[in-house]
Each structure stands twice: as C-alpha cells, then as structure tokens.
C-alpha cells in the first residue's frame, strides 16, 4: 500500500492532466463502489444486499452491460465491494478508498444506518452522490444534496402503523399498557423515539409502562423479559436487529411468558433467517412489518418478487445467506442504478442526482413504488403491519393493518 502511495506521487500528475481530454469518450466499464459486512453484527442485514446487487451486476454483464444514456450504448459493469467487517472505522477508510483511489462512478453505501452514517460526510466532502440502500437515519437527509435512500422508508415513519393499530384495534381489544424494548442504534433508536411520539398523544388510551434501551450486541434477554413481565404489559414492542430478535424470541419462548400483543421487526423482513433460528412455533402470533418479501407488488421494471427469489436462491445456494427483504433491497438498489444510468445525461454526480430524483414516483419495482421526498428520503411505501402464523414447516404472514390492505384479522393472545 505504501509502495502504491509512493508510486501515486509520480503517477497521479500526468493522469490528472489527461482526464478531461478523455472525458467525452465512453469508458470501458462503469465502476460501482460498495461495501459489505462479511462479519460482525451487521453481516446478517448486509450480505443479502450485497448478493442482491451482485446478482444484478452478473446478469447485466451477461447481457453485454448496462445501457448508459450518456454514451448511448451498453457498457459493462464492474462491482468493487470491500468487506468492512461491521466496523465503522474500517468502513470510513474504505469509502475513501472507493472515492479517491478506485474513483468509482456510482457509490453505494453498506446496508443499515450505522455503516451508512460514516459514508454520509465522506461522500458529501468529495461531492459524490451516495446511493443509500437501507441507511434510514433521519439526520442523513438534513440539507445534504448528495444522498438518496432507495429501498427502505426513512426510520421515523416505519412504526406509524404499529401505533395506529394499537390505538385503533388494540384499545378495542383491551390493550392499555405498552412495554418498549429497543436496541440503542440509529435504526431502532430512531424508531423507538418516533413510536413514543406516536403513542403519547393525549387521548390514545395507551400507557408506556416499560421503556428500556439495550446495547445492540445484547444476546441474552432472559432477565429483561422477566423485568418486562413484572411490569405486566398488554403489548410488548421489541425493536432490534436480526440477532436481537432471534435471541429475544428464543429467550421469550424459553421463559414461558406470553403477551397479548408482541411486535418484532425482523420476522417480516428476514423471515427465513428467523424461522431457521427460532422455529415457526416461536413466531406464532408475532406482529411484524410486512415488506415486499410478503406483499406481491406489481413491478414495471425487473422481475416479480417470486421470480427474483428463485434467481437469488439459485445464484447463492450454499452461501449460508438467507433470502429476505434485504436481498430485495439490494436488488431494488440495483434497479435504481440501472434506471439512473439509462436516464442520466452524463456521469457527473449532479446529473446522476437529477436522474435519481427524476425517477421518483415513476419507478415501480418488486419493492413497490420508488418515491423520494425533497431531501432524498424514501417515502414510497409505508410498511404495513402483519402477523405471523405457522404453516407447516414455515410461516405465513397476513397483513392486518391498515384495514384497506388487510388480508386477515389480527389474533390477540390470551390475557
């Protein structure tokens, strides 16, 4: 690396002079820079995004490349994706590497808010537009023209339907006391704050009797569950990442405690992973977000969810990475990249941004409608509330709220 650095001293000067002359000619490849977490707490939400993106790159190159409007021809893609091992420090260096050394044309952030957060100031500093698959931290979008969130809605609106459902159907069913347990990170912490706001309206009829943040690396919930049970809530809302949900649901099953309403994020997002680790019985009756993995949106671009699932599982058999919403998020991101290249007037970051925002409201993929607010936050589809029911060796998820989308009636646990 140091040798490369020293060589750079010599090599960069003529290169920098040569660049503008070549700019009008079509490049031999379009470089897409990306990071993934091969290990650590974010691996389970990051690897599926990476493999979804990679699947698209492979497919596109097999057909001769992506159509690039700026040069009016198909150009092959090159995916440069480094492993940040879930470390923000490593990720920061690698984002810099992608921008300054690899000089990527399109920069795609890692999955999740934490690993995206370090990319935001770096991309902004280098005036590089950041394609953000699932980093939903609300602060990313505050007067920052260099970002767009592509596949997840911004975290502040995720839990809206949980609150609405509890205030509506919940109160009617006799639910009064709510316990809130969340992991302290940008993704779930923001949702907890939003949820608190939604629930604490004066006439909601609901009362928060337990409110506790725990570190994201918490792996044993036995005592916390006991503490929650001691507060005697009717509804328990557990906001955590995949690993948290697995540990929480397993410990809950082992403890023998039951609650009338139980919500967890990932049964509806990484369904296969949860079924594999918790078992269908452990997920029985759990309320969760329903993503495009469980709702069949009608895509106008790209495959349907069912088709994509088949492709993904075929391409990644034996990788140990389960299919789930993050795989869809990765592929949705890829489709946005594809459409951006097909619409941008040039590969300048400003034109890329213009093209991405131009797609807003018009692009319909397997992830539903792609729509950005003026800050670049995703507002296309609000995730409905669903409920898990065991079905054979797997599970089925029914949408229970909002009522106009409902595919089943909510079932509350016995008091």
């Amino acid at each position, binding site marked *: 690396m140091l040798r490369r650095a020293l060589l750079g*001293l010599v090599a960069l000067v003529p290169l920098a002079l040569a660049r503008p002359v070549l700019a009008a000619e079509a490049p031999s490849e379009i470089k897409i820079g990306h990071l993934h977490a091969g*290990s650590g707490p974010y691996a389970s939400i990051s690897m599926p995004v990476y493999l979804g993106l990679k699947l698209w790159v492979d497919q596109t190159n097999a057909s001769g490349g992506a159509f690039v409007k700026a040069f009016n021809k198909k150009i092959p893609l090159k995916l440069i994706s480094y492993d940040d091992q879930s470390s*923000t420090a490593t990720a920061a260096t690698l984002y810099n590497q992608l921008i300054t050394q690899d000089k990527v044309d399109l920069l795609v952030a890692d999955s999740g808010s934490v690993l995206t957060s370090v990319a935001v100031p770096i991309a902004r*500093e280098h005036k590089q537009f950041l394609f953000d698959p699932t980093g939903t931290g609300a602060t990313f979008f505050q007067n920052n023209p260099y970002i767009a969130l592509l596949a997840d809605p911004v975290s502040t609106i995720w839990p809206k339907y949980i609150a609405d459902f509890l205030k509506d159907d919940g109160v009617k069913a006799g639910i009064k006391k709510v316990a809130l347990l969340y992991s302290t990170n940008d993704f779930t912490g923001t949702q907890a704050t939003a949820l608190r706001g939604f629930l604490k309206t004066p006439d909601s009829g609901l009362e928060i009797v337990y409110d506790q943040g725990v570190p994201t690396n918490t792996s044993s919930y036995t005592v916390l569950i006991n503490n929650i049970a001691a507060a005697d809530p009717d509804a328990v809302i557990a906001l955590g990442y995949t690993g948290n949900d697995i540990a929480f649901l397993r410990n809950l099953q082992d403890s023998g405690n039951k609650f009338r309403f139980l919500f967890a994020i990932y049964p509806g997002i990484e369904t296969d992973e949860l079924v594999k680790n918790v078992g269908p019985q452990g997920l029985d009756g759990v309320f969760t977000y329903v993503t495009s993995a469980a709702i069949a949106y009608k895509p106008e671009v790209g495959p349907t969810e069912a088709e994509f699932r088949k492709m993904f599982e075929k391409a990644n058999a034996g990788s140990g990475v389960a299919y789930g919403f993050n795989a869809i998020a990765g592929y949705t991101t890829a489709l946005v990249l594809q459409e951006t290249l097909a619409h941008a007037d040039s590969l300048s970051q400003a034109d890329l941004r213009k093209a991405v925002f131009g797609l807003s409201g018009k692009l319909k993929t397997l992830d539903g409608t792609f729509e950005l607010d003026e800050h670049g936050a995703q507002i296309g589809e609000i995730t409905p509330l669903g409920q898990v029911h065991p079905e054979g060796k797997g599970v089925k998820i029914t949408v229970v709220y909002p009522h106009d989308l409902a595919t089943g009636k909510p079932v509350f646990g016995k008091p």
Partner: protein
Amino acid sequence: MRRTVGRRGTGDLLIALVVTAIMAALPFGYSNELLLFNFVTFLALSQGLNVLYGFTGYLPFGYVGFFGAGAYGFALTVMHLNWPPLAAMAAAGVAALILAAILTPLLRLSGAYFAIASLAAAQSVYEIVANPALEDVTKGPYGVSLSGVFAPMFSYQVGVAVLLFSLVVVVWLRNSRFGLALQAIREDTVSAAMAGVSVVRGRTIAWLLSALIAGLVGGVYAWHISVFYPDTAFNIQFSIFATVFVLFGGATTLIGPILGVVILYGVYNTIGITVPQYFQLIYGVLIVALVLFLPNGLVSLATRRGIRVP
C-alpha cells in the same frame, strides 16, 4: 561517553524528522488521505505504547482507553462548549491524563494482571461513555457527529505534529538519564531502587506520557473522521494493532515500531481489505512465531549481532 550519546541523539532526532516530513508530504501525492491518516495514527499510537511497554515493561492491553478518552475529550468540548479544534485537542490530552491519573493504582499489578486489568479499565470507560443513560452528555451509543469542525487537511497535519511529538518523546527516552533509569527499573526493580532510582516516580511519568500521546492521537482522530461511535473510539483493535506493531518491530527502539507499522499495516491494507479472515490468520501465525522465535522483534536480528539500532 556523553558525546556519543549526544551524537546518537542527533541521529535519532534526524530519523524522527524525516519520518514526520514524509508523512506530512504524502497527502500531496496520494489522495486517500484517510488511509495515510490511519498510518499516522498507528505510527504515533505505537510509539506511545512503546513509551510504556518498551521502557517499563508494562503491557497495557487497554491502551485504547486513553485513545477513546482523548476522542471524547475532543468531541465533548467541541459539542458542548463550542471550543475551536486546537483548544479541544488540549482537552483531549487532559482527558487522557485524568484517566491515567485515576488508573495509576493499576501500576501496582505485575505483568499479566496489569495487562488484563488495563483492558477491563478501558472496557469500563467504554461502557460508561456508550451508556444510553448519558445520551444527553456523550450521545451514548448513537455516536458523535462533528461536521462543524470537519477539516481533513488541517487535522491531518495536526496528526503529523502529534506523531512528531511521540517520536521526540521516544528519542528523549532513548538518550536521557531518565530513560536509562527506566530501563534499569524494567530489568531489575530491586537493584535499580537500591541504586537510587525512584521506581514509582519513573513509572508514573512514563505512564502519563504514554497516556498523553494516546489521548492526543484520539483527539485528532475524532477531529479527522468527525463521525464516530463509542465502539469506534474504544475499538480494542487499536490496542491490538499497536501492540503487535511494537512487538513485531522491536520495543525500546525508535525504528522498531515504525517498521512494524509500515510492514504490517501495509500488509493489512493490501490483504486485509479484500480477505480479512486470511489477514487475521497471518497475523495470528506471525504473533505466535514471533513470541516463540523472535521475542525481541525484527530489530533483534541486528542487535543480536551487536549492531546498534536507533
């Protein structure tokens, strides 16, 4: 005798200045300055660890605690008091010094116990800083954003200044009576004490100096990256890397740790990025082989033959 020491000192100082000059100049030719900055960070951090381990024999596994204290000392004064970055750098150093003063009793423990107790101390500081209960003060686990003072080039050069400071401290220790006294304590506590060397005072000074360097490095690191989480600032990897760099090159010397950083961190950035597991494997094998076959580091290949290594 004095003259040779003086001449050696000048030579050592020259090396320090050359290393500093190279690191100061590199970003003008190589644009991933964050990568270069990481080199600066580890060069300074491993010299700071060298001050303690190389000259007193105490191996602080929890060295990152001072680094983190510095990072948060910097961040808190910027966030809450709106201090300018250079004043906040002073706060970073002071934060690490305060922590070191609190932890001075750890010096009563011998080798292995000290190493592990210092790690536990660093973890404790992390648990406090990252606690959601302190969100109003430290931002807890949600991390710190210092976009207001973000200044990559300026902070890089301040980092180089911190590096120079750490190198000069090591040059001084290698060429002063105080440094020799410290080494005498390390070799034989009892005889050194009988020879009139103040064991407690000497160790405490090395401990504080070492903490000060880590605190300054932590402060400038916080400034340079501007967005970070408690588990970034207290990442045990900083201790581990610094320790391995020092051991690999050879403690108690000036160029040992430099060699360690340039070679190993260089390898890390070529292999480690693409296949971190293989890098970890190589690291592990290197450490085991080093302890078994070359416990005094690379430089001992030369010192064994009677060649003086700066």
